[in-house]
C-alpha cells in the first residue's frame, strides 16, 4: 500500500517533467500548427547550459539563466529559421525541426563532447525529504514537483489573466482573426516559441542532474513528448497535462509491478504451448511489464490515433 503512494509520487515527478515539455510544445503547436521535433533538443540545451553555468555560478544561477538563454535561442530559431520555412508548407516545417534536432545534438557533441556530464543535484538538496515505509523520497524530487507546479500555475495565470494570455488564447482558437485585430502575430509567434522552448529549458535544468546529462538525452525523451501531446490531443493544454500524468503513472506502475504477458494471454483464453522452443511467439509469452514499460506510450498513441484521431481532449486534427 505504501509502495503505491511512493510510486504515485515517482510517477507524478515523471509526469510533471513531461508536462513541462509538452506544455511548451502544445503552445507552439496550437499557435503555429507545427510539431516542433527539436523541442527535446532545447530541453537538452537547458541541461548543458545549466551545467556550464553551474561550474562558475552554481546551480541556482543556472536555473535562472539557462532557460532564458534557451528561450532566446528558440526565438532566434523561430525568427530566422521557422518563419522562412513556413512559406513552403507544413511538411517542410516538420522536416526543418527534425533537421534542427539532429543539428543541435551534433552541436552539443561538438562543444561538450560525447561523455556524460558530471552535472549534479546541488548540495543543499542532497538529503531525503521524507520516507515512506523505508523508501526515501529525495528532497530534489520534492523540489522538482514544486518547480513544475509553480510553472504550471504561472502559465495558467498568464494565459487567463493577462492581455498577452488573452491574445494567445484567441490565437489558439481563431488563428486568423487575431491578425485582423491588429496584433503583431509574427511577434506573438516568436514570443510563444521562445517561451515554449524556455519551458523545455527549465525542464532540462532540473532534470539534467537526475536523468543524466548526455548527448542522447534529447532522443530518449524526444519522441515521448510528441507521443504525450498526441495522446492528450494536439493543441489542448489540459490534454497535455492529463496525458503527461497518465504516461508518468503508466510507465512507473508498469515498471514497479511485474505483470506478465503469460497471465494476460491465458486470461483472454490462449493456451501456452507446451514446447516453446519452436514457437515464433515464444518471446511474447515471457514478456513482463517492466520489460516494455517505456514502449507502452507508443502503443497507447497508435491505438488512440486509430480509434480517436483527435487524442483524448483534442478538438481539431492536424
Amino acid at each position, binding site marked *: 500500500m505504501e509502495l503505491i503512494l511512493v510510486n504515485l509520487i515517482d510517477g507524478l515527478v515523471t509526469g510533471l517533467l513531461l508536462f513541462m515539455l509538452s506544455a511548451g510544445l502544445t503552445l507552439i503547436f496550437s499557435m503555429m500548427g507545427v*510539431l516542433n521535433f527539436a523541442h527535446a533538443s532545447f530541453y537538452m540545451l537547458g541541461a548543458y547550459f545549466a551545467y556550464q553555468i553551474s561550474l562558475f555560478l552554481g546551480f541556482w544561477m543556472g536555473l535562472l539563466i539557462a532557460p532564458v538563454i534557451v528561450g532566446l535561442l528558440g526565438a532566434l530559431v523561430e525568427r530566422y*529559421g521557422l518563419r*522562412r*520555412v513556413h512559406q*513552403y508548407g*507544413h*511538411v*517542410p516545417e*516538420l*522536416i*526543418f525541426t*527534425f*533537421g*534542427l534536432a*539532429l*543539428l543541435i*545534438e*551534433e*552541436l552539443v*557533441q*561538438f*562543444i561538450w*563532447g560525447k561523455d556524460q556530464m558530471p552535472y549534479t543535484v546541488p548540495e543543499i538538496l542532497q538529503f531525503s525529504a521524507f520516507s515512506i515505509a523505508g523508501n526515501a523520497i529525495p528532497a530534489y524530487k520534492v523540489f522538482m514537483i514544486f518547480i513544475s507546479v509553480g510553472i504550471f500555475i504561472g502559465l495558467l495565470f498568464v494565459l487567463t489573466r493577462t492581455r498577452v494570455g488573452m491574445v494567445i488564447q484567441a490565437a489558439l482558437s481563431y488563428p486568423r482573426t487575431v491578425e485582423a485585430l491588429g496584433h503583431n502575430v509574427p511577434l506573438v509567434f516568436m514570443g510563444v516559441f521562445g517561451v515554449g522552448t524556455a519551458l523545455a529549458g527549465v525542464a532540462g535544468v532540473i532534470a539534467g542532474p537526475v536523468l543524466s546529462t548526455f548527448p542522447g538525452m534529447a532522443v530518449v525523451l524526444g*519522441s515521448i513528448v*510528441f*507521443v504525450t501531446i*498526441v495522446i492528450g490531443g*494536439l493543441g489542448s493544454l489540459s490534454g497535455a497535462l492529463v496525458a503527461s500524468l497518465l504516461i508518468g503513472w503508466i510507465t512507473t506502475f508498469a515498471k514497479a509491478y511485474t505483470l506478465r504477458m503469460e497471465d494476460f494471454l491465458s486470461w483472454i483464453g490462449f493456451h501456452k504451448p507446451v514446447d516453446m522452443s519452436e*514457437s*515464433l*511467439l*515464444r*518471446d*511474447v509469452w515471457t*514478456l513482463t511489464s517492466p*520489460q*516494455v514499460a517505456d*514502449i507502452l506510450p*507508443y*502503443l497507447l*498513441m*497508435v491505438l488512440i*490515433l*486509430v480509434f480517436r*484521431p483527435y487524442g483524448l481532449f483534442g478538438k481539431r*486534427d*492536424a
Partner: protein
Amino acid sequence: MTDTTLHSSQPRLITLGGALPWLIGSLFLLVMPQVFTSNSAITIMNQMAITIVFALSYNMLLGQGGMLSFGHAVYMGMGGFMCVHFMNYIEDYSLPIPLPVLPIFGGLFGMGVAMIIGSFSTRKAGTIFAMISLGVGELIAACSVIIVAFFGGEEGVSGDRTMGPPVFGIEFLHQIEVYYLTAFWLVLSALLMYLFSRTPVGRMANAVRDNPERAEFLGYSSRWVRFFSFVAAGFFAGIAGGLFAINYEIVTEENLNLVQSGSILLITFLGGVGFFFGPILGAIVFTLLQSVLSLQTEIWQLYLGLLFVATVMFFPGGLAGVIMMHTLPFRLGKARLLLRPYVKTLLPALIGLLGTAGGMEILYHLRHAALGENEMSLYWISFDSHSVLPIAICLLTAAGGFWLAKRNAPELADAWHEANTPNGGVA
C-alpha cells in the same frame, strides 16, 4: 519564374527521349565496375544502389503522396529479415530457388506489412500519419530486440547467399556478381516505380498530395489513394531490404530502427522530393559524403546536419530542385550569362565555407584532442592548433569569402533574373 513550373509533368508516350535516361543509366551501371574494380568500391556502389531503391520508395510517400513517414525503414527491414530467413530455408531444405528472385519475397513481405499498417495509418495525412509512422516504427524496432525468434535479437539473422542453386554457373561468391544482381534489381524497380507514377493511382497520389479534398470530389477516396501508394512503397522498400540481405548476408535491428528511417528522410530530402531523379541523386551524394567525409573529419555529422538544415531553409527542392532551376535558362539559351556571376559569388562563398569549416575543425581539436597533442593537419597543412594564427587565418578567410560573396550576390540575382526572362520581356 517559380520552380513550381517544374512540377508539371508532361504526358508522353514512350519515346526515345523518355527511354534515353534509362539506357544511359543502365549503361553507366554496366561500366562502373570496370572503372572501379576494388571490392570495397563495389561494396560502396552496392550500398548506393540499395539506398537508391529505398530512397525512391520513400519518395513515393513523401514526394508523390505528400506523406511524411518517420518509420519507413520498417518495411525495408521486414523485407530484409524475410529474405534472410528465406536464404536459410533454401540452405536448410535445399530449395531450388535461385538467389536472384529472392528480393521478390522481400518485396511481398514488405507489402504485406504495409497493408496491415497502412490500413489504419493512411486514413489521415499530415501530422497524424507522421505520428503513427513514428509510433509504429518505434514499436516494431522495440519488438525486434524482444522477439528473438524472428529478428534474432541484437545479433540479427544471418544467412549464406551461396547456398542456393547456381544461376548460369554463377554462385554469387564474389562482390561483382552481387553487384550485377543488385544493379539489375535497381533498374527494374526504378523503372517500375517510375511507371507507377504514370498510372492512374500514381497520378491521383499527386492530386491527393496537392489537394486531398478536391480529389474526393472527383470520385477518389484520398484514403485509398494514399493506401495504394503506401503499399506500393512498402513493396519496393521490401525489395531494397531483400537486396540488403543478399549483399550483407545479415540483417539486424539497425535495418528497421528510427535512425535508419530518419536518414532515408534526410537522403530523399537532400536529393529533392519534387523530381523522380531527386532521391537517386540524394542516395549517391549521401553515400559518398558518408564514406568520404567521415574519413576526413570526426565532425562530419555536424556538417551533414548543417547541410540538411540549410537545404530545408534555402533549397526546399533539394539538389534536383537546384539543378532543374536551370532548365529554363538553358532552354532560353541564356545559361551562359550565369557563369561569370556564379564564379564570382560561389567561389568566395566556397572559400568562406572552407574557412568556417577550418575554424570549426581547429576549435574541435582544441577542445577534444588529448592534452599536449597540439599538432593537427588541415587541408594538407600541419600546424599547432593551440596558437592563434591558424584560427585567425580561418576566420579571416571565412569573413573575407562571405563578404565577397555577399557583395557579388546582387549581380548574381540580376543575372539570374535576366537568364530567366525570355528575350523581348516577360511573357
